[in-house]
């Protein structure tokens, strides 16, 4: 069945979704997530579903998208009954229904399947078995609809969160869905990116797509033609929305209540609750030039603590510059002073360097120029011991701190930091209790952190930082994508700590949070931080606040290819070769290099490698730059080699060691032929996209399909794995940072301490890996991936004259190698 058919089929049934008495629960939990939901959605509607965290919204979305079956009830999707109590789930009906339903998830990054935008968007149509010309048409139209046509050849994994979410929507549109379901698609985006998504949804609705939008935001909910409120697994209210007619109307009662239920906090960004006293008079809209930081004469509110210390700042930053890749500084010439007891809010668009600054303040990185002095310690020049001591005084709440949870119980997890400070057990317990109390989660102490809701996990993770009793606390977007109640709890914590005299640096997107600060510093202006895309909140989060192109990880293949995919439309001969031919020939040449044993053969090899580099049009210097660590290693091992060879004529004798001419020759041949091998490999990696590599990999494996090997699935696994490398790298680094900030140390201490510190990193990394896997499997289902059988291909591989020429050259070269073996 093609999507075109699905979409154009005349629809006698005006109902898109019909749910009757739907109930759902997880197998180990007694309470129902959905407890008797009746809901009918007609074609052409724009339904917004609202409700607090844990009310069952996301589960409801999965059921409506045909991605999960309920425990009981009746589910009818696009006219076909996919689930009822008598027959249970009907897999074929589910499959058919999914072909007409699109689903976009909260986390933009986990929905990306490959590293070229157009290929990613084509994945769904390929799964539907569309003919190639149709795929091309659908991909183009979908990219147009989300204003991403200019980025068709870019790499979506290095895009901003907003662009990634638009990519995800395009991936669905290309399948021509009649029903589009979105689960909090803007939760991780900044305001500009949000506005883009909302405009796109309006346009799609105007063009006739039925839309179901799950959201926290009252502003967004108002756009629907209908608002359904869910509470504790039941529908609590169902009323007409504005449908975009008048967005200034007072908010419907169903939403107002939730917002009002929170103590003294402005519930929504931009809405200032009059009951919250402003501690400083700054205007939300005012954007201070960042260099004004120290000449801000305004005294912080009366505090007993900071009066004495206000002369020498707790944090002093002078002329700070930092760049992840040369020529793209995220910070340059930045100055900031933070006095003791002050709360400073850092704002600025994504990529402005906020998270980088946070890491530097916590001594988790070293500035490249300028100085960062925290509690009198110069971060750039501090010894290991000084940095460790500093980390005891500075607390770091990273973005999405719940990702650092690792222990069996909340209590154990919170105790990790204090235990690393080698406090006695009574003191550890006292601190843990205090921290849990402060965050209002004492009742969760003995639960597994992995059983908690997202909001509770966030509070538990923050308690783990608070239990270290930091004098300085750096919080990176602590309330991002939290519901109103949990966000209010965190704001309350900031106030309490401020009153206790803790110096706080608060990075935030939420304007409502600026009222917590004595001073607001905007990083968006000046300092030459030109970044093309705003709204990279998720990219920031998952890459540990690093810019995507982190120079220090250039040797990870994913990282390298990511940079490459950006440089659009390469025209060199090597890039345009058929990937299957290119991969086979490269492997052949690489392994044949180990047969080289004579000078003439070496020369032939050198000529070949030079030709390959020329054909690829790579600057030899740049190539040497990427492989030099390997070359250095070979030089060392080659030299070691030299001493092992005892045969041949002695050249030098130094004490007991004799170096022979054979030994020298062994060393030379070892180094040179290895250099050939890695240069060939590097040329291949430089000039082949991960997608091409996967295609080639699948083609080369395909003979094995005859003996029952899942070759298509294996190559998809490989392709998805390559695509997730940067994500996992960033996340692992962020977790390692966060645990280091809590005093976890894998480099010193007893073996057991080090193993435990390693565990505190490895467990959350696995947890993140599994979380991505869950999200990814849903995204694959939503894109109708049903195995390799019915798939068509967007890109066609064809062996051309260029490939034949390369094969001939390779054949000649190999023949020459064999012939030269007899030449002496």
């Amino acid at each position, binding site marked *: 069945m093609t999507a075109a058919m699905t979409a154009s089929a005349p629809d006698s049934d005006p109902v898109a979704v019909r749910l009757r008495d739907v109930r*759902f629960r997880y*197998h*180990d939990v007694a309470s129902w997530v959905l407890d008797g939901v009746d809901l009918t959605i007609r074609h052409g509607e724009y339904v917004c579903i609202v409700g607090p965290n844990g009310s069952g919204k996301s589960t409801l979305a999965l059921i409506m998208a045909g991605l999960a*079956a309920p*425990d009981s009830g009746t589910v009818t999707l696009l006219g076909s009954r*996919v689930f009822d109590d008598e027959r249970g*789930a*009907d*897999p074929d009906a*589910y*499959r058919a229904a999914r072909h007409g339903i699109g689903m976009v998830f909260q986390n933009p990054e986990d929905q990306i399947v490959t590293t070229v935008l157009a290929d990613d968007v084509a994945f769904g149509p390929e799964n539907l078995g569309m003919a190639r010309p149709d795929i091309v048409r659908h991909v183009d139209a979908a990219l147009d609809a989300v204003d991403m046509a200019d980025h068709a050849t870019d790499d979506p994994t290095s895009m901003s969160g907003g662009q990634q979410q638009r990519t995800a929507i395009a991936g669905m549109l290309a399948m021509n869905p009649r029903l589009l379901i979105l689960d909090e698609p803007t939760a991780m985006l900044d305001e500009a990116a949000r506005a883009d998504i909302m405009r796109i949804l309006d346009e799609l609705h105007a063009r006739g797509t039925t839309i179901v939008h799950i959201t926290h935001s009252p502003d967004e909910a108002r756009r629907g033609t209908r608002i359904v409120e869910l509470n504790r697994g039941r529908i609590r209210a169902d009323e007409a929305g504005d449908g975009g007619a008048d967005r200034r109307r007072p908010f419907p009662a169903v939403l107002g209540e939730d917002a009002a239920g929170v103590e003294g906090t402005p519930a929504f960004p931009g809405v200032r609750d009059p009951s919250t006293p402003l501690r400083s008079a700054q205007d939300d809209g005012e954007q201070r030039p960042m260099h004004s930081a120290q000449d801000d004469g305004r005294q912080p509110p009366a505090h007993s603590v900071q009066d004495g210390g206000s002369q020498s700042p707790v944090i002093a930053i002078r002329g700070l510059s930092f760049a992840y890749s040369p020529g793209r500084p995220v910070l340059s010439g930045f100055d900031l002073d933070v006095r003791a007891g002050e709360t400073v809010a850092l704002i600025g668009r994504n990529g402005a360097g906020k998270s980088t600054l946070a890491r530097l303040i916590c001594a988790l990185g070293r500035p490249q120029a300028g100085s960062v002095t925290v509690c009198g310690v110069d971060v750039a020049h501090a010894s290991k011991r000084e940095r460790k001591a500093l980390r005891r005084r500075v607390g770091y709440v990273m973005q999405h701190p719940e990702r650092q949870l*690792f222990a*069996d119980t909340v209590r154990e997890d919170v105790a990790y930091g204090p235990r690393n400070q080698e406090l006695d057990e009574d003191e550890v317990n006292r601190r843990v209790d205090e921290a849990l109390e402060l965050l209002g989660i004492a009742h969760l102490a003995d639960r597994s952190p992995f059983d908690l809701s997202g909001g509770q996990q966030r509070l538990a993770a923050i308690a783990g930082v608070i239990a270290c009793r930091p004098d300085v606390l750096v919080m990176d977007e602590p309330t991002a994508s939290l519901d109103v109640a949990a966000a209010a709890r965190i704001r309350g914590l900031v106030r309490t700590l401020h009153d206790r005299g803790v110096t706080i640096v608060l990075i935030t997107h939420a304007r409502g949070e600026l009222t917590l600060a004595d001073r607001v510093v905007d990083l968006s202006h000046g300092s030459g931080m030109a970044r093309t895309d705003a709204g990279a909140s998720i990219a920031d989060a998952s890459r540990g606040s690093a810019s995507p192109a982190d120079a220090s990880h250039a*040797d*990870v*293949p994913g990282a390298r290819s990511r940079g490459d995919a950006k440089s659009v439309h390469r025209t060199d001969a090597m890039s345009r070769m058929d990937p299957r031919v290119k991969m086979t020939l*490269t*492997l052949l040449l*690489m392994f044949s290099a*180990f047969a080289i044993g004579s000078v003439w053969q070496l020369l032939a090899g050198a000529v070949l490698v030079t030709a390959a580099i020329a054909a690829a049009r790579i600057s030899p210097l740049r190539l040497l730059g990427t492989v030099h660590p*390997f070359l250095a290693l070979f030089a*060392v*091992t080659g030299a070691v*080699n030299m001493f092992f*060879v005892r045969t041949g004529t002695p050249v030098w004798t130094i004490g007991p060691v004799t170096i022979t001419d054979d030994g020298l020759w*062994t060393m030379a*041949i*070892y180094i040179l032929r290895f250099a050939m091998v890695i240069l060939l490999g590097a040329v291949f*990696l430089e000039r082949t996209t991960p997608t091409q590599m996967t295609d080639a990999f699948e083609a080369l494996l395909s003979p094995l399909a005859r003996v029952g090997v899942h070759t298509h*699935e*294996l190559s*998809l*696994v*490989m*392709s*998805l*794995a*390559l*695509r*997730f*490398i940067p994500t*996992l*790298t960033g996340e692992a680094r962020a977790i390692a940072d966060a645990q280091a900030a809590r005093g976890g140390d894998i480099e010193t201490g007893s073996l057991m301490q080090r*193993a435990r510190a*390693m565990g505190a990193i*490895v*467990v959350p*990394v*696995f*947890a993140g*890996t*599994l979380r991505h*896997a869950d999200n*990814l*499997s849903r995204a*694959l*289902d939503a894109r109708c*991936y049903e*195995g390799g*059988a019915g798939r068509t291909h967007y890109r066609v591989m064809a062996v051309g004259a260029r490939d034949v020429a390369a094969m001939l050259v390779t054949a000649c070269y190999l023949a020459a190698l064999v012939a030269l073996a007899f030449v002496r």
Partner: protein
Amino acid sequence: MSVSSPTANHSTGVSDSGRWSTKRIAVYALFVALTIVLSFVEFPILPGVQWLKYDPSGIVALVAGFAYGPAAAAIVSVLGFVPHVFTDPWGAAMAILVSLALSLPAALVYKRNRTRKGAVIGIVVGAVVAIVAAIGGNLIVSPFYFNMPVSAVLPMIVPILLPFNIIKMAIHGVITFLVYKPVSNLLDKRA
């Protein structure tokens, strides 16, 4: 728990048999990605022996084998080192061999005896097989790799190859043992 049988609850079903569920593909993909990431985190553990480096990637194959069975261990072991084929072909072949030798026997033992004791026995058996495979593999590969005759490699077994591999397997084993319980709890929760 096994990915090959989709979760009993809430699955919409796989209508044709013999293909992999998206869950299985996703889990394999992420484990392979993690293996690749960790395989680049390498450091020498024997002073003065720079060409033998420890990397924690073997832990992922072990965990995959415990959680999802021998097939997962094999897939993670092989695919996890495919990217290294283009930077260090013989090194990649060796890494695949050793990872298979460690994680396959461990997964097979644990499959029959899914207890803490089974995990320990599995890790020990796997470690012994892996050490033998590593040394045997070194003898075969060294002539290509270092242009060194087997006779030159033999004297290195006891002072260098053996201690390196024992330390490496001990680190793998201890960390796997420590993290497997929490990780398997996580796996159960997702079911």
